[in-house]
């Protein structure tokens, strides 16, 4: 691990000031906020991340989970994943989020990992994690060996000729279906970013993963007031039953009225270069009868534009079945 200077800013403003002069907030950042450490310390041990300064934000007052006046929920950036998943309101009103978080990592890691850290979780692509290999995300212009190499677990949505790395988060998939908003405080003030606009597609710049700039500190996430009577399911399919990343997952938030789908939000995990909301599946289902045939049709619509790699064509059918089953489970719920 490379050496670094460790400091503990007294408040968010001090943290933002200390990070504002960094060259980038993206891959290779010379200043990093340190929260749970489950991604950052891991990548620092691999020399994938080599920050010169670490700013410990664990003791900033950003770890609360609070009801909002409009009925929504405000989730602090450093609220631990286990606290969020086990929060009474999350379990009652946003159960897809609780299910998603509890399907990820291990109990120990969930006790450490934070809301904002999970939002910024890095890909598990083996080439990204191995500094002996080229990787456009880690070293722009060095190439992407995954495209002709080991890509069984990698993305079928949102890829480019420069990067096909999967976003590994479960939490983000549920937040996409819940239409969460990410709140950022930066050198220029505060801004609120819909979760769909936080992560960037790799395109020609896979080293840029989010819209965050130097000094930008995620302070909290808000969830809109819950859809009354919504049925929520997170279904995750993977190589082993627990403590494994998704090969395909589906988050469903659905309301039924008289046997028809009156409201539905759908997002997929394990298949996209970012958490993958599926407006195609949503519009295929809107107003339709909650039937097995329509669920399958929505899944067909969701995967229509999937682009498989050499080893992961199976993900297309897997993701279809995953979404179909998640919709059916929600309908039965």
């Amino acid at each position, binding site marked *: *691990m*490379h*050496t*670094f*200077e*460790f400091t503990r800013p007294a408040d968010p403003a001090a943290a933002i000031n200390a990070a504002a002069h960094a060259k980038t907030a993206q891959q290779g950042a010379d200043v990093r906020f*340190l929260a*749970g*450490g*489950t991604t950052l*310390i*891991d990548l620092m*041990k691999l020399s994938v991340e080599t920050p010169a300064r*670490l700013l*410990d934000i*664990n003791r900033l007052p950003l770890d609360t989970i609070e009801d909002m006046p409009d009925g929504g929920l405000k989730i602090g950036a450093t609220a631990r994943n*286990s606290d969020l998943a*086990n929060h009474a309101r999350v379990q009652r009103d946003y159960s897809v989020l609780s299910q998603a978080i509890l399907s990820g*990592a*291990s*109990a*120990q*890691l969930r*006790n*450490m990992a934070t809301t904002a850290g999970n939002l910024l979780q890095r890909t598990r692509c083996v080439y990204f994690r191995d500094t002996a290999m080229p990787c456009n995300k880690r070293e722009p212009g060095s190439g992407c060996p995954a495209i002709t190499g080991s890509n069984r677990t990698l993305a079928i949505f949102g890829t480019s000729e420069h990067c096909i790395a999967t976003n590994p988060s479960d939490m983000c998939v549920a937040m996409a279906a819940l239409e969460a908003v990410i709140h950022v405080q930066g050198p220029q003030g505060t801004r609120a970013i819909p979760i769909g606009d936080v992560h960037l597609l790799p395109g020609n710049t896979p080293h840029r993963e989010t819209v965050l700039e130097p000094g930008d500190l995620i302070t909290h996430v808000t969830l809109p007031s819950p859809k009354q009577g919504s049925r929520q399911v997170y279904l995750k399919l993977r190589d082993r*039953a*627990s*403590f494994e990343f998704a090969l395909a997952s589906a988050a469903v938030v659905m309301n039924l009225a008289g046997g028809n789908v009156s409201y539905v939000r759908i997002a997929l995990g394990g298949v996209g270069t970012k958490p993958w909301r599926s407006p195609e599946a949503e519009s295929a289902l809107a107003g339709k009868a909650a039937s097995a045939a329509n669920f399958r049709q929505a899944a067909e619509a969701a995967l229509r534009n999937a682009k498989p790699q050499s080893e992961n064509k199976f993900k297309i059918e897997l993701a279809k079945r995953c979404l179909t089953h998640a919709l059916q489970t929600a309908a039965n719920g």
Partner: protein
Amino acid sequence: MATIFDPTVSTRAGRAENSANELAVTVTLRINGKEHSLRIDPRTTLLDCIRESVELTGTKKGCDHGQCGACTVHVNGRRVVSCLSLALVNDGEEITTIEGLGTPAAMHPMQAAFLACDAYQCGYCTSGQIMSAVALLNESCGPDDAAVKELMSGNICRCGAYANIVDAIQQVRKRA
């Protein structure tokens, strides 16, 4: 009693640099109720600090990347993997290791249950398993074996003692 930590020891897994000594910082760790004031390289993980500086070697290093659970300890009563946490981050926190649970003469009920159920073979993962199992007792966990297995999935046992580990945990839960 204060212990002085040699920073060159902590960096053997990484790139030891001459600047390490200049960067050494002070941290106070409360481990098993005892305070340790240490001078450490900021890169030192809680795991390395516990094992090499405080010399409590019951906590084991397996993968060193948060994937095996051998290094599980409690911080303020919650289980974490100590390999992915910098020692500095834990300044002043209450840390419990396997040495803080019980003694051979007065074992924690979970330690006694592991012994009674033969819940280990080589023993390398066992302290991590027991630290996880003790934390699980205070977590939201359904009554059946499947719930226990799910919440214990962060602790890998390559001898495959899983069935007996679940038995040991259930034995303690039923008595509670």
